[in-house]
């Protein structure tokens, strides 16, 4: 999937993204940048929800699973049913999915929330149901917008590990937008940083294989972790 010289503005006066070019390879890409720099807009352009003013987004017919910042949970469905919504719309429900759903609910500490409706869920629970909903979908590309928002520390490491593992096994591209630099480095194989007003790519780095193979919980102990982090923070402070 290719992004070529893409520019986008919501109104003609302010350009949100300018001249963005990058190729989406089979890696987990972390997109970071200051608030309002166009990270979500970038995901919307990739998903096709927005059309670029200039440039080209070549999807090559790839299917996309997209977890938006505010997960889509319908009020009349309980958590279990909401988690199955994406699969159901694609008519892909089967016994394996049901098994996987059970597994993910217990892994993400959602067993008690199975029969609860969205208005009975905490922000963190909603987010986790949203993640399950997206991961149950078999897709070519995964887009996750701030997936760890409002997730408590206890569950966070499990989710990070699961997501990291899933994308490693699937060998498919995943783009994760996050405001947390450290988190981005813990989970990604490649980091792209956007500047603000307008958003352009100011940093794009793919990390070496041995770093990418290290699971999130162990990455902090990787000898290069701190160097990578300092490099990003330095760049970020100059934005």
């Amino acid at each position, binding site marked *: 999937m290719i992004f070529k010289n893409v520019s986008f503005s919501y109104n003609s006066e302010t350009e949100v993204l300018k001249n963005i070019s990058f190729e989406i390879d089979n890696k987990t890409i972390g997109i970071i940048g200051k608030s309002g720099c166009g990270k979500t807009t970038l995901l919307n352009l990739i998903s096709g929800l927005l059309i670029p003013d200039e440039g080209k987004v070549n999807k090559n017919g790839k299917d996309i699973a997209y977890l938006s910042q505010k997960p889509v949970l319908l009020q009349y469905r309980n958590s279990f049913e909401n988690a199955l919504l994406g699969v159901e*719309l694609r008519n892909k429900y089967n016994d394996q999915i049901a098994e996987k759903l059970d597994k993910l609910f217990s892994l993400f500490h959602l067993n008690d929330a199975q029969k609860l409706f969205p208005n009975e869920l905490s922000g963190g629970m909603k987010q986790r149901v949203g993640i399950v909903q997206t991961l149950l979908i078999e897709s070519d590309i995964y887009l996750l917008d701030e997936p760890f928002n409002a997730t408590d520390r206890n569950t966070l490491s499990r989710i990070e590990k699961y997501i990291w593992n899933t994308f490693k096994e699937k060998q498919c591209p995943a783009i994760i937008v996050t405001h947390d630099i450290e988190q981005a480095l813990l989970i990604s194989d490649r980091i792209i940083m956007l500047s603000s007003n307008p958003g352009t790519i100011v940093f794009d780095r793919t990390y070496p294989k041995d770093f990418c193979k290290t699971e999130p919980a162990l990455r902090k102990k990787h000898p290069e972790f701190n160097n990578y982090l300092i490099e990003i923070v330095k760049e970020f402070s100059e934005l």
Partner: protein
Amino acid sequence: MKRILRITLYILPLIILCVFWELVANSSQEFRFLFASPSLIISKFIEKTLNGELIKYTLITGYESIVGLISGVLIGSVIGFSLLYSQKVSKISKPYIIALSSVPIFGIAPMMIIWFGTGIFMKIAMAFFSTVFVAVFQAYQGGQDVSKDELDFFELNGASNKQKFWKLVFPSSIDWVLQSLRLNSGLAILGAFIGEFIASNKGLGYIILKASGLYDVPYVLAAIICIIILSAIFNFLVSLVEKNKLRIIRSLSLRK
């Protein structure tokens, strides 16, 4: 204890009004002739209920209203929802719907006799036309109330039009449809009533027309009490539907 106090507070104004009304009616014959009195109304109500006349005519008006209401809301909602699927059609049809909904039902009532005769079907048609335009509007507005994020999610996951309607549009706009049911329950009774008023030999509208021609004020007011009871029953039925909203949505939306 609190409940008794609350109920008393609700009934108190009615009791005061009735006592005052009764006293004035007893002291002035002219007033009694023009406005009757609570005791006269109640005795007429009991008399006509026991001989079955009021019950029969209330059931007739109720039947006409409910058939008109259900068909009006159902067909109106279907039209309102289908307008959502074509922006062009909805844009073109919007001024027509506004124009049609502003036509007073009383105005077309004489035409209804020409179109539908003087039988029960004319009253149902009156109730239908009193409700259908509100239902179209409510369903159309409700359908537009669907959140963009949710619609985007459905689009991205390749949802069919059927899925979009049953799993998203219908549940999101159910409050609008229920509101249309509530608003229309009064309009349906009014429509049927006007139909009976214009040409009929049965129903509460007929009673009121006949009784007022005979200066039988107690009977007119007894019939009005029946209309109020009918309206309360309709409201109760709508509340029942509202209470079971989630169950209705789930039974219609989960399996589609």
